[in-house]
């Protein structure tokens, strides 16, 4: 199109009276608390007046008040209101929202620039990991020795539930949040995400969910584990209501984010950026986003039905009234297994990206790796009942679900081969990001293979509900996904800050986290093999030594993560300057200046070849 430049002469007018331009995180907190208090007061006065217990209703309404107030206070509804009244945003409004010339303040606002959102996601991820990590320390300290009562059993159970869910949320956003936002639009040659305001909405909706999750601990906690198993979840205290409302809020955030990622990749690519030329991380993020769109509605529904059972008198999961806990388990795992790959895929994509750059080789079998990821996503929706082998639900389906679960090791193996093939005979540059790749390879072998054991029904009958399962999925989530997330952070950190992440501190952190992970979870495998049940706050003295080892290992992981946090903070302003492309990478995000300008590209690039031409003679330029 031929465009006009009329907007460039518009001076910034007030955005609807000025108040909209004074909204930030502080006003959001204030509005959230005020609305929560008002909602609580109204609900309490109306419902509790006749002495009957409506505590669940009051808690849910209070949570809704918090979320609505917070979103109003951050300005998430401003543009919706403007749409509704037919006063669309001007270009000046859009530039204001994008954070033009706003300096540091834009990080505390409803800012639409995808790079700001990416940085905000880095911080949110660190907060989630930090809170979940502290709870993990509490759990491990309690398990240091048999009969140790660091916390009482009710609190211990709540720690388990909230640790689990905080970490699941943290890992869902750990790679997709920061990097599908910060780098994917640049990678595909776009000026921003497809829907910048929805991008900011997804971030701030996630932020709104966190106090609900942590708040559930403050109002008595919840003791049903992160899987919110009914009927325990129906009998849990009001802490469950906040827990479930946090998840419902979170599903809104991820759905919005997933739609945005897919639309960005499918409709915002620059000229010549064909699907075959997309960097593998873009594919990984898009497939994960699509899988999330499938999975998270189940999360929304299962939590809504659970709340409904608690406050509306419905009986979805209450066996005495016609419901069944199996329904809850089915709905939960219809979400729960695909979600594992929503978590894993972006991390794997980032690690593949790192590997091509530091092995100075094209990605080994690009198409195969895409097929592997698509295969993972496709199969992952057909395996959910492997979480229910021992529940007695549909024994006849055990065989088919065992087969699909074992089949999923094929695409997983393919992706693993792609990673090894890319390393094979590469000229490997051992910088910090590569450490995490090798750590991933080692850990993911353990996490993956033990998953195949557990998919086998006779073995699962023995292992289900033991610490063996906990060790397995921690090898996947900590040993693999967290390693991918940290690798991605080390890799793209220079693009965000213009500085290297401190290499020495980074390597110290790597060795602490790597050794700590293996110490903690190898010992946990042994606890599990000896029959130690999961989720118990105390145990027989025969598990004493392995638990002491696991606890020490967990402290080592924490120490490593603190060193990493120190490196992230200290290098942000004082790290060694990196220049725009310190790794000699060929994907687009490294070819723009650092710091990346607003709207990324002065002129949109035209792409003429694939992104992994390392070591090949240039045929054109």
């Amino acid at each position, binding site marked *: 199109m031929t465009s006009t430049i009329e907007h460039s002469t518009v001076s910034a007018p007030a955005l609807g009276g000025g108040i909209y331009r004074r909204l930030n995180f502080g006003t959001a907190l204030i509005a959230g608390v005020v609305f929560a208090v008002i909602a609580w007061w109204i609900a309490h006065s109306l419902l509790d007046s006749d002495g009957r217990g409506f505590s669940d209703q009051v808690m849910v309404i209070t949570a809704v008040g918090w979320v609505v107030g917070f979103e109003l206070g951050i300005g998430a509804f401003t543009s919706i209101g403007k749409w*509704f009244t037919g006063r669309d945003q001007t270009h000046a409004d859009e530039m204001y929202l994008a954070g033009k010339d706003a300096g540091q303040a834009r990080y505390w606002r409803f800012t639409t620039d995808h790079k700001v959102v990416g940085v905000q996601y880095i911080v949110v991820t660190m907060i989630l990991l930090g809170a979940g990590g502290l709870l993990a320390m509490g759990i491990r300290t309690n398990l240091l020795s048999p009969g140790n009562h660091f916390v009482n059993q009710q609190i211990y159970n709540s720690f388990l539930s909230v640790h689990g869910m905080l970490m699941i949320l943290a890992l869902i956003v750990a790679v997709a949040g920061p990097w599908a936002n910060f780098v994917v639009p640049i990678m595909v040659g776009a000026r921003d995400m497809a829907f910048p305001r929805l991008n900011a909405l997804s971030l701030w909706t996630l932020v709104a969910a966190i106090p609900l999750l942590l708040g559930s601990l403050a109002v008595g906690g919840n003791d049903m584990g992160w899987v919110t198993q009914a009927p325990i979840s129906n009998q849990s205290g009001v802490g469950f209501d906040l827990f479930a409302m946090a998840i419902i809020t979170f599903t809104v955030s991820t759905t919005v984010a997933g739609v945005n990622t897919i639309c960005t990749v499918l409709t915002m690519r620059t000229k010549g950026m064909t699907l075959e*030329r997309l960097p593998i991380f873009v594919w990984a993020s898009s497939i994960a986003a699509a899988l999330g769109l499938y999975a998270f509605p*189940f999360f929304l529904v299962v939590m809504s039905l659970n709340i409904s059972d608690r406050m509306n008198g419905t009986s*979805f999961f209450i066996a005495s009234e016609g419901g069944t806990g199996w329904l809850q388990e089915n709905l939960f795992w219809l979400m729960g297994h695909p979600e594992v790959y929503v978590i894993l895929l972006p991390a794997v994509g980032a690690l593949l990206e790192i590997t091509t750059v530091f092995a100075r080789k094209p990605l080994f079998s690009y198409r195969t790796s895409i097929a592997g990821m698509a295969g993972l996503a496709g199969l992952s929706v057909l395996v959910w009942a492997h979480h229910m082998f021992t529940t007695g639900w549909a024994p006849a389906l055990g065989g088919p679900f065992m087969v699909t679960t074992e089949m999923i090791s094929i695409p997983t193996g393919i992706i693993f081969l792609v990673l090894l093939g890319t390393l094979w005979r590469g000229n490997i540059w051992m910088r910090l990001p590569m450490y995490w790749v090798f750590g991933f390879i080692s850990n993911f072998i353990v996490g993956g293979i033990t998953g195949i054991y557990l998919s086998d029904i006779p073995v699962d009958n023995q292992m289900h509900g033991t610490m063996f399962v906990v060790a397995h999925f921690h090898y996947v989530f900590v040993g693999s996904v967290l390693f991918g997330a940290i690798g991605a952070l080390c890799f793209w950190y220079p693009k965000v800050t213009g500085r290297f992440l401190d290499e020495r501190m980074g390597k110290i952190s790597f060795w602490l986290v790597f050794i700590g992970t293996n110490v903690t979870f190898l010992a946990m495998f042994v606890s599990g093999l000896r029959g130690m049940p999961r989720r118990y706050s105390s145990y027989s003295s025969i598990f004493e030594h392995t638990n002491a080892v696991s606890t020490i290992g967990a402290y080592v992981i924490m120490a490593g993560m603190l060193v990493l946090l120190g490196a992230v903070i200290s290098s942000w302003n004082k790290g060694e300057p990196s220049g725009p492309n310190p790794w000699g990478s060929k994907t687009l995000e490294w070819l723009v200046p650092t710091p990346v300008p607003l709207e990324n590209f002065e002129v949109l690039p035209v792409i003429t*070849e694939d992104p992994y031409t390392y070591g090949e003679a240039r045929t054109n330029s």
Partner: protein
Amino acid sequence: MTVTHNEHAESGHHEAPEVVDGRQRLGIWLFIGGDMISLGALLFTYLYLRGVNSGGHWMSIVGMPSKGITSAGPDTFTPTTLVEQPMASGLNWLIVLVVVVSAALMWLGEKRLRASVNGRGAFRGYAAAATVTAVVGIVLQVMQVRNVPQYWIQSNDSALFAYTSYGSVVLAFGISAIIHFVLLVLLGAGLYVRAGRNVLSYEKWYQARLVRFFWVWIAVSTIVTAIVVTLLNTVH
């Protein structure tokens, strides 16, 4: 990656409306896709609970009818096994009719808007009618939700309101429908205002189609739900 500069790249970063529309169309279909999964999860819930008929309680409950009892609960509790009948399907199909008419009005309005430069006034009429019809849908749906039979049951010495599992899912369908109809009303009213302010017009009609997609999907989801709830309701 080799890069050349795009000679004809836009200077002001403004995109053609069709380009923006294409992106928004994909976006709305993805959201509808997510909504379809949610509906699928509720349909799964309905068919699953009916299929297992846990404890024979798909349409029966041990308790007292709630009619005539205040919110404080009954004075004396004499629970018996109560067998429920499927809800009358007339109101359900009336809601379907109302929502289908509402979607058709929106679609006709969009057609008029796109047909001629003078179609804006007609569009406003259709949008207003579609919105009002959706409000009627909300009213009827609230009536439907209130019709779902409630019972008193005894639990730990106290009396609680409860639904059978059949009633539970019908209630969930109803609440979900109300939430969706409220969205329709907001979108319809928004289009009405926007057409009045000329930001929705013969040249800029795209948002009318985006809203229509959603409207038609809601009509379809209402039909699917009604078919399942009215045809497959007795014990399997």
